[in-house]
């Protein structure tokens, strides 16, 4: 404490000076102290002047122009172009017109009312993500069922070939636009073994996210124990492999460091709310993300409740 302010509650005095006590009983209390007590009066005069000077300095700093740098602006524009599917930045960095994945998605809804067609345009990006998830549905389902180990090597190989920065700059081009014609897409997600997808019953907090997987054994989704838990119903939407894959793709996209390798998926809670807790590694390290039941839903993204770097 500054010696000159000994005996003075500086935060309280600052609140008084800043008007935060207006209308409260504390306002009169502090005013009385300033009127009666020389220490408080002296502190008030000095602090008020110092705070005013700080405000003036900050205003002066803020008055200077701070335009978005051209490279940041271009990066944003590129991300939006990729997100809209109008153009796609390939993994190798060259740009070319997007494949008609959104159109294909819309075509599946052809023949329905025009309002549905408009909604399809509105959800072009999420549908593109879902289309990619569906493209890998067999891969995902096999993994969920513990039957698809043979696909691991090709997935790993694809990820190994992807430039590290691809995810950051293009914001998951695979998810947004699908692979180029004739090209094999590099999936953003490799699912964990089936025995690492389940319900631990844990109610996580930020600290426990970083603590590693729960010691208690997972219960496979669909078992009686899992389905009678309070979270089961809330997270049902994420039980199907395609929905889970879409959620994991959304997490990979928002993580922004390229493909993720998922170690475990826990249908659990975070701070009391239903959450799927996903542990994964990516180009930016090992993470534990808690996402809400809407994870991967159209227009929602990863529905992130919290994210913690592990290790």
């Amino acid at each position: 404490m500054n010696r000159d302010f000994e005996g003075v509650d500086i935060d309280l005095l600052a609140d008084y000076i800043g008007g935060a006590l207006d209308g409260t009983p504390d306002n009169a209390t502090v005013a009385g102290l300033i009127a009666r007590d020389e220490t408080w009066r002296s502190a008030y005069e000095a602090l008020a002047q110092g705070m005013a000077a700080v405000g003036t300095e900050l205003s002066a700093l803020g008055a200077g122009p701070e335009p978005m740098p051209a490279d940041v602006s271009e990066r944003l524009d590129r991300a939006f172009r990729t997100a809209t599917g109008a153009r796609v930045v390939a993994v190798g960095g060259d740009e070319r017109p997007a494949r008609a994945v959104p159109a294909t998605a819309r075509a599946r809804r052809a023949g329905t009312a025009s309002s549905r067609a408009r909604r399809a345009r509105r959800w072009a990006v999420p549908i593109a993500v879902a289309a990619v998830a569906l493209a890998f549905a067999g891969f995902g389902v096999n993994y969920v069922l513990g039957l698809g180990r043979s696909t691991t090597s090709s997935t790993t190989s694809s990820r190994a070939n992807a430039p590290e920065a691809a995810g950051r700059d293009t914001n998951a081009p695979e998810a947004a636009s699908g692979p180029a014609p004739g090209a094999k897409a590099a999936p953003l997600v490799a699912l964990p073994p089936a025995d690492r997808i389940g319900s631990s019953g844990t109610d996580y907090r930020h600290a426990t996210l970083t603590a590693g997987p729960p010691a208690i054994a997972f219960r496979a989704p669909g078992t009686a124990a899992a389905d009678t838990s309070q979270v089961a119903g809330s997270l049902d939407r994420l039980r199907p492999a395609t929905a889970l894959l879409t959620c994991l793709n959304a997490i990979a996209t928002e993580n922004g460091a390229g493909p993720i390798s998922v170690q475990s998926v826990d249908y659990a809670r975070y701070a009391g709310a239903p959450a799927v807790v996903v542990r994964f590694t990516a180009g930016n390290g090992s993470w534990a993300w808690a996402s809400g039941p809407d994870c991967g839903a159209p227009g929602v993204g990863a529905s992130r409740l919290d994210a913690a770097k592990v290790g």
Partner: protein
Amino acid sequence: MTPGAAARSDADLVRAHLAGDSGAFAELVRRHRDRLWAVALRTIGDREEAADAVQDALLSAYRGASGFRGDSAVTTWLHRIVVNACLDRIRRRQSHPTVPLPGPGRDDDRYAGPEPAAPAPDQDTAMTVRAALAALPIEQRAALVLVDMQGYPVAEAARILGVAEGTIKSRCARGRARMALELGLPRPAGGDARHAGPGNPAVAGGVESESAAAGPPPAREGRDQR
């Protein structure tokens, strides 16, 4: 730019984006990007982190635009998402040393320590003030960036940060007080009566005690009114 975009309101652009207008959201961002960038850079204090935060936030807004209910201004909504992205990033790196805020006009936005040659007094002061700002708790820093640096009214800052106006007033007041102490500004009668302001380079090294800013919270903590 989409034809006619300039004539459309921000809300119109959000509606157009939701209706499938592929250029509407980018146009919306172009309108506000400089202010959003300034808020991000001044809050997070690191150019690359600010760029990542802005991109993450705006892509999140792009994808989640259907969740915008129109009960606040579009700019408030965009600022809220950007500021929250910055605060999330700062919290994630809390275990690392804080990087002082960059200065306008610097090619390298990272604080590089003392200048090799004597800097101009105003530049020296600006760096000192930025460093003091960067040392604040993030909630106080964010409030001061919005209110004192960006000039937003307290009510608007409250909407952006999702807290009560009284909370913003308190965060700003306590932040200014901490900075004043850090900069050695308040000198009650009996001390140095010059009341040197931060514009006076003499105060740059005049911090009497860090404990005033970093000491235990006073009994009167908790003016926050979330």
